[in-house]
């Protein structure tokens, strides 16, 4: 059972540790700095944090002494010549013009958004504006995965060329600066380290079965309500995806347009939202490690009103692949709750669940969500929660 939680917040990396049955948070590092994601490499024990300095840019940080001290890690940079199509920001020039010309821009790291760990030594980092960086030496060096960067859906090879002139990768509101796409989910198949699924806002889900050398879309069955063709191959906005580690053909997805589930390894997705219960919009999803048909969400009211549903915070749980949902409310505020839980801010480990919100509340359950208790209520806005 886990005894520690790494929490990335707007003002630093918080470590929550259990001792004598009590969970206590403390600031571990990066005081005053935004920490987009923090997680532990299961192979080496190194703690990693992706920082978003308001002034100094995105930086990768690591601790090799369990959070006692932190140091700048070798930094991730786009290679010379890396470029991307930048769509116009909605509203720029006075009117949204989806048919307007695209601009080609030099790529620089805007946000280090998510990290994932494959076989020993393999570390993935997903970024805004959409680069996937890979290390095979435990984080001593990273390289841009060019096969994904040059993917036809993104516009082809823009290194010194004009590419196709088209892109299906659109911006994410999580971008700061250029309205650019971002990789926020990276899932490695526990059966096969060469099989990786990633999710991009805003493009969709892609899969590689050969260690990242080639990629294909995995969006069949996903539906959008903001484009003329809801079932188009590209343009989707998955908010997060997660593989059930013990049942890897089962994958869960919280999308901008609902909740989706697949039991065939992402060949096809099925929409399993229950809007009458408030289960539709949200950001994070946590798949059960043993039973692939069990998953947890923290729903939000809607994309137009991003806050708790009717002022009452709850966690939704399904045990039948989304056919039915249970609202878990015990211990959570049911009046005047405005918590929003970001896509990386929910995690599960065995019987433990934890989530943190933009209002600085961190909640924990030790009984698979049946009951909850607060661990911190004056924390900074929380960006990520990961058992470590």
């Amino acid at each position, binding site marked *: 059972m886990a005894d520690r939680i790494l929490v990335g917040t707007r003002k630093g990396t918080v470590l929550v540790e259990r001792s004598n049955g009590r969970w206590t948070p403390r600031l571990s590092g990066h005081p005053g700095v935004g920490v987009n994601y923090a997680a532990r490499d299961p192979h080496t024990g190194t703690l990693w944090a992706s920082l978003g300095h308001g002034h100094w840019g995105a*930086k990768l940080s690591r601790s090799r002494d369990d959070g006692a*001290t932190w*140091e700048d890690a*070798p*930094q991730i940079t786009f290679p010379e010549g890396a470029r991307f199509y930048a769509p116009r920001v909605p509203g720029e020039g006075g009117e949204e013009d989806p048919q307007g010309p*695209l601009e*080609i821009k030099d790529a620089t790291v805007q946000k280090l958004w998510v990290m994932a760990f494959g076989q020993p030594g393999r570390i993935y980092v997903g970024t805004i504006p959409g680069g996937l960086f890979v290390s095979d030496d435990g984080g001593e060096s990273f390289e841009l995965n060019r096969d994904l960067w040059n993917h036809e859906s993104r516009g082809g090879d823009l290194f010194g060329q004009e590419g196709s002139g*088209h892109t299906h990768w659109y911006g994410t509101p999580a971008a700061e600066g250029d309205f650019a796409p971002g990789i926020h989910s990276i899932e490695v198949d526990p059966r096969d380290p060469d099989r990786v699924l990633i999710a991009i806002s805003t493009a969709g889900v892609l899969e590689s079965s050969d260690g990242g050398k080639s990629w294909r879309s995995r969006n069949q069955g996903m539906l959008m309500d903001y484009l003329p063709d809801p079932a188009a191959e590209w343009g989707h906005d998955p908010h997060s995806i997660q593989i059930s580690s013990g049942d890897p053909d089962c994958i869960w997805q919280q999308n901008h347009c609902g909740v989706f589930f697949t039991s065939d390894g992402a060949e096809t997705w099925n929409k399993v939202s229950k809007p009458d219960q408030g289960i539709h919009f949200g950001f994070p999803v946590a798949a059960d490690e043993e039973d692939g048909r069990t998953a947890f969400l923290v729903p939000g009211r809607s994309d137009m009103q991003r806050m708790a549903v009717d002022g009452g915070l709850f966690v939704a749980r399904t045990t039948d692949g989304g056919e039915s949902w249970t609202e878990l409310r015990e211990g959570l505020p049911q009046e005047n709750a405005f918590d929003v839980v970001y896509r990386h801010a929910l995690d599960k480990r065995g019987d433990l669940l934890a989530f943190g919100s933009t209002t600085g509340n961190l909640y924990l359950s030790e009984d698979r969500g049946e009951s909850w208790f607060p661990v911190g209520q004056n924390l900074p806005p929380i960006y990520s929660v990961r058992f470590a």
Partner: protein
Amino acid sequence: MTATTARPVPRPPPCRVSVVLRTPSSCIVSAAAPRPFRGAHANGGAKVNDPSCRAQHRELPGLPPPALDGIRAAPLSSPSMPKVELTRHLFQFFPDLEGRELIVEGETVAEVVSAMEEVAPGLAFYLCDERGRLRQHVNIFIEEQRVADRDGLSDPVGPDSRVFILQALSGG
């Protein structure tokens, strides 16, 4: 949708700099081995709790090696030697720079940044992105004049200039 190519972003000029760092004890320490400016240090940046962020002793070409007592004669030429003053907010990430007088060689802002990168590996990537462009919420002043060329940092620096590297009010 059709694509148009954006105006090419100017790249910072390649810099060949030698660094002379004056320590608070007024002992002149020389560092050589000039190397091109890059947007990010390849082998890791600041070590927040690691005291090894120091200028390395290396020989300047054409100049005698440092004397044993660490004092050397002034070079015959008069290179541009601006003084750099950093916002204290950077000392959180580069603690070895706090309290030190930083006088580096450089004739442009880009050369000054390169020289500072030699002194504090990783610093350049705090100030600039990987294209060498000054980050949006970072300001560099020469005396009281904000630099004009934020993309290439080509603003000239005088021999006795004071160069201020500061965080903007925005970005906080």
